């Protein structure tokens, strides 16, 4: 018996050393990985389409939407506000350090407001909300999956896409632009505070420079981005939670995957939208 086992293992070792088998194995791994990736993309696309469809078709659950608006919007306000405030303050400080070398201190107000409205507020708010809300959505829906609460919804004639997914997607897509608009104001205020009280700028000239350089599209592009990021965060949280594997480990993995995938998609989407708006 032992001799047979030794013979089998030596045959396996010989097979793995065979160059043809090694190449075939390589193709098998790459092909398997590619197929899994394409399957995941297909599933995610289908899930997004279903989620969008249920956002626009009755029955609606307004109380669920209201609850999610409070969870996603109201409770994210401190995180987004603090992030915007300190980002605006650091931006003013760093810009001053660089711009004094070229006697271009007057450009600080413009740099702060454009950086905040176009890029930093939507991207940082998106990433912060992905960490706070994406994880929470994935954990909540994942736990509901594991404890058969989603099955229970179906047995009570309630479509889980309408009751769980659509309210979160609607709330995420609507609330992130509002959070970003508030973040824009707080971020600019952060730059203002540092510029006036730390760097000695004149309040009137700082504000007039800010207004002069700021255009309607600068703010709106940030809000459009925020809506897209809100959609991404909520859909990725729902998707990973909805297809969570069994057990605590499954829910943990769903939470991690929701945050990581939403963060990466936000960064990719930010590049694409920037290209669309400003190229």
């Amino acid at each position, binding site marked *: 018996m032992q001799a047979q086992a030794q013979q089998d293992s030596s045959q396996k070792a010989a097979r793995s050393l065979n160059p043809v088998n090694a190449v075939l194995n390589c193709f098998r791994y790459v092909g398997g990985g590619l197929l899994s990736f394409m399957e995941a993309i297909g599933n995610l696309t289908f899930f997004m389409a279903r989620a969008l469809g249920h956002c626009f078709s009755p029955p609606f659950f307004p109380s669920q939407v209201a609850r999610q608006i409070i969870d996603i919007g109201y409770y994210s306000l401190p995180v987004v506000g603090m992030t915007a405030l300190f980002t605006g303050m650091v931006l003013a400080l760093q810009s001053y350090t660089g711009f004094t070398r070229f006697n271009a201190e007057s450009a600080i107000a413009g740099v702060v407001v454009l950086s905040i409205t176009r890029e930093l507020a939507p991207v940082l708010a998106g990433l912060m909300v992905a960490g706070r809300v994406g994880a929470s959505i994935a954990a909540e829906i994942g736990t509901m999956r594991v404890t058969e609460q989603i099955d*229970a919804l179906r*047995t009570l004639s309630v479509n889980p896409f309408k009751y769980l997914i659509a309210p979160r997607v609607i709330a995420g897509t609507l609330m992130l632009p509002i959070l970003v608009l508030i973040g824009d104001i707080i971020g600019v205020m952060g730059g203002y505070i540092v510029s006036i009280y730390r760097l000695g700028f004149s309040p009137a000239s700082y504000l007039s420079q800010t207004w002069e350089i700021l255009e309607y599209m600068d703010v709106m592009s940030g809000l459009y981005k925020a809506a897209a990021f809100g959609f991404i965060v909520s859909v990725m949280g729902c998707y990973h939670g909805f297809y969570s594997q069994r057990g605590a480990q499954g829910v943990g993995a769903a939470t991690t995957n929701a945050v990581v995938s939403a963060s990466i998609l936000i960064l990719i989407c930010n590049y694409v939208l920037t290209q669309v708006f400003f190229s």
Partner: protein
Amino acid sequence: MSGAANDSSDNKIVLSGLCKAFGKNEILRGIDLAVPRGKSMVVIGGSGTGKSVTLKCILGLLEADSGSIQVDGHETMALKGADRDELMKKFGMLFQGGALFDSLKIWENIGFGLIHGQKVSKKQAREIAIEKLQDVGLKPEVAELFPAELSGGMQKRVSLARAIATKPEIIFFDEPTTGLDPIMADVINELIVKCVKQLGATALSITHDMASVRKIADYVAMIHEGRIIWCGPVADLDRSGNPYVDQFIHGRADGPITNHTRF
């Protein structure tokens, strides 16, 4: 076909040749089962033999690979969307772990199907929920608590109250006494019998608990390796003449069922 009644009009649910596999793992290999209208059928069998999968296929929570599922003589395998939601109004289900919604109060859990499925007002749903709580032996004060504040036995009772609140024609019980002490298990069994009789519903249960089987079953079916291997009235259970059934109901390690050692 394994079943208690041969005339299809007497049967509420009829499964024919139901198959379901997960990858290469064939769980159901042609389930044939007829559940008589207004009777209580209990499916017994070892762990991993396909009992829960059968229930989930009937409810549409899992998609069967082939075969037929008829409810009231209508094929339901292909039903989706609104048609499936409509069919689900006939069903109530008591889940093994209760599956109560943690974010909702007890009365909201019980009234959930009434509010969202049958468009009953919240006030009326609350009154019905309290009535159902009393039916399962719980005080009205429990209505304002959350599921996490209840013991396992109380959660099972609430889950039973939720299952019967919409007055379903068919009620499924997934291992209703698992995890309960023998006294509480007996209380739940009695509640099941009482509620099913009050509603005149058809019941399909799955369990390992033989005391539960003898208490709630009119008919018993045994599933083994994805097939129904015996079905008959509960009175015939002890004289089935089937060695698999005999081994299972007496809980013997020795016998034709050997897959308990496969891991």
